[in-house]
């Protein structure tokens, strides 16, 4: 009994406080005419995939600020709730649940990598909430899940861009060397399965470890078949080691790399061995080289200068995935009044949206919405990119 009486004053104070809180907050809600739209973001802002997640977070915040500055969507302000997955699928799953249950967001953008996206997808399917992933893996949109979209270019398109180029050079026999992780495996799968459509035969398909210091053994093996071209699928630094080894072995075979090394860093790492290497890349890398008639040129220039002004750091194509996702979502939010099914329908009917990564045409059967034109082929010449026609 004594215990109870001692706590009674405390209870009274707490009750008063609680009521006071209600009184203070209630008018605040009714004051603004329309409630804000909360949209969630989950990116690998730190950790090994932070080169993806950090620019993605910044780009998404940039879009939200721009939209709010111009008066919001149908009078609704936007609020971005962004969490850091650290590239961990388990965390991504928890954070998605948190966004849905605690923050009550009406749509989610992200995560940055394929494994984290795949970890989040079961929740999306269950809760039914519009979701735009920024990861590259094709598994995300095949088979199609009505609520899941993605803005990053799939490797299917990158392979198609390389093979188109090989076909125009009348090359028939190639060899493949890919890194033995998810990125390389997925690339290898596409390279092998699409080869037939372009009349190519794959003489050898070799792999290397992401941290390998020397690949002359694999190259020696490849050399035996005299392929007309070598396609390497990996992210830095492996492909740069391969390029150096090819130079050292005097292997004068045209080398194609994946879009995974499409950054100035690759040229820096490979040095003189980078000369003559050809690769597919999103247009952002070569924005200044594009002809003025290119439909993406204007939007790319705008994005690059905005990003540079706001964050004082150089721009990469990765932030563009979130930039496109946020802009497409904002367009879909118009006239939706926050109804999730309406947003989803509007997303699926997005047509001709000119973005950083390409021109998006979503449909019932295509939730990535990009065509091989999203990629351009470039060649490295004198340490600089050169557009290939």
């Amino acid at each position: 009994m004594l215990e109870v009486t001692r706590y009674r004053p405390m209870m009274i104070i707490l009750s008063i406080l609680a009521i006071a809180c209600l009184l203070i907050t209630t008018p605040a809600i009714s004051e603004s005419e329309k409630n804000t739209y909360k949209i969630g973001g989950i990116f690998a802002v730190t950790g090994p995939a932070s080169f993806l997640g950090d620019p993605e977070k910044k780009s998404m915040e940039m879009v939200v600020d721009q939209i709010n500055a111009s008066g919001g969507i149908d009078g609704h302000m936007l609020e971005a709730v962004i969490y850091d997955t650290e590239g961990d699928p388990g965390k991504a799953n928890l954070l998605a649940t948190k966004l849905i249950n605690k923050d009550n967001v009406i749509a989610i953008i992200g995560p940055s990598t394929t494994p984290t996206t795949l970890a989040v997808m079961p929740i999306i399917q269950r809760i039914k909430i519009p979701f735009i992933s920024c990861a590259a893996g094709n598994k995300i949109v095949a088979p199609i899940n009505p609520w899941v979209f993605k803005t990053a270019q799939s490797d299917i398109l990158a392979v198609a861009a390389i093979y188109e180029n090989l076909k125009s050079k009348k090359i028939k026999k190639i060899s493949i060397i890919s890194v033995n992780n998810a990125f390389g495996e997925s690339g290898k799968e596409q390279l092998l399965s699409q080869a037939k459509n372009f009349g190519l035969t794959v003489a050898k398909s070799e792999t290397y470890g992401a941290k390998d210091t020397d690949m002359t053994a694999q190259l020696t093996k490849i050399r035996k078949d005299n392929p007309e071209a070598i396609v390497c699928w990996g992210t830095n630094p492996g492909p740069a080691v391969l390029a150096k080894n090819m130079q050292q072995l005097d292997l004068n075979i045209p080398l194609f790399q994946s879009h995974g090394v499409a950054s100035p860093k690759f040229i820096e790492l490979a040095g003189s061995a980078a000369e003559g290497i050809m690769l597919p890349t999103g247009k952002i890398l070569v924005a200044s080289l594009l002809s003025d008639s290119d439909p993406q040129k204007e939007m790319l220039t705008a994005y690059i200068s905005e990003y540079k002004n706001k964050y004082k750091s150089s721009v990469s194509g990765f932030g563009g995935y979130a930039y496109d996702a946020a802009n497409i979502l904002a367009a879909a939010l118009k006239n939706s009044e926050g109804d999730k099914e309406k947003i989803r329908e509007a997303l699926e009917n997005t047509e001709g949206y000119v973005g950083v990564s390409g021109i998006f045409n979503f449909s019932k059967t295509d939730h990535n919405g990009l065509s091989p034109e999203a990629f351009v082929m470039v060649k490295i010449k004198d340490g600089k990119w050169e557009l290939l026609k």
Partner: protein
Amino acid sequence: MQEILQYLFSGITNGAIYAIIAIGFSMLYNSTELINFAHGEFVMLGSLCMVTFFGSMHLPLIPAMILTITCVAVAGLIFERLAIRSVKHPEPIVLIIITVGASIFLRGIGMIIWGKDAHSIPAFSSHPPLDIAGAKLLSQSIWIIVIFLVAAVGLQLFYKKTLTGKAMEANAISKRAAWIVGIPSKLMVMMAFGLSTAMGGVAGVIIAPITMSSYDMGTMLGLKGFCAAMLGGLGSLWGALVGGFLLGILEAFGVGFVSSGLKDATAFLLLLFILYVRPGGIISSADTNRF
């Protein structure tokens, strides 16, 4: 024939790197019975210091090398003084876990100082590759083998000919007996740490031009070096040499004749087999157990 020779060259280059890393493991194990799982991180430090001194500051080759190796050895001494010697109850398992912690710490430091990107530096000399019966031997491979030989012979002379080296060996054989004849065991352990991490630095220096240096390169190299040391017989200098070269050459031939996907598996399967047949490693009889 040309292919076989090329695989052999590739194997010898990688083998020399594994051997130097393995020597670092072996040396420390010999003096302290401690396996330093942060050893690969010292290789990383060496490689990245070389990037700074040789790549960015453009120091001449030899001063850059000496400066790098000194830096890494000093880092090793600080590690011993702060993290190892201050342990109240130095049981092996505690110390090993400390080294695992240190490896994570060093990787973090490397990431803060040099960033997450990979770096590359030019080869030590720009000679074209040697052509031997159609197979190419890279000039950097020759550098690696020469530096490796200098290090191995230098160590052997140090242990057999100098008083300090003999004192270290005595301390390794029996701490108590060495203490009785007046050898300061703490100093000897510290020197072993310094030398072992300096070897890590040497490994880092020689691989910097052939591979790309990044903060997370140490783990795999450390693991391969550890395997080489186990393969040859932990605690033996010659064992480390044999183990390193065997591992490197087998990997290269594994790629050539089996499959590049099974590169690591081929080598590790052999490791399992040898450890099954000779649990102490290839060179493991009592009298070759010490340096």
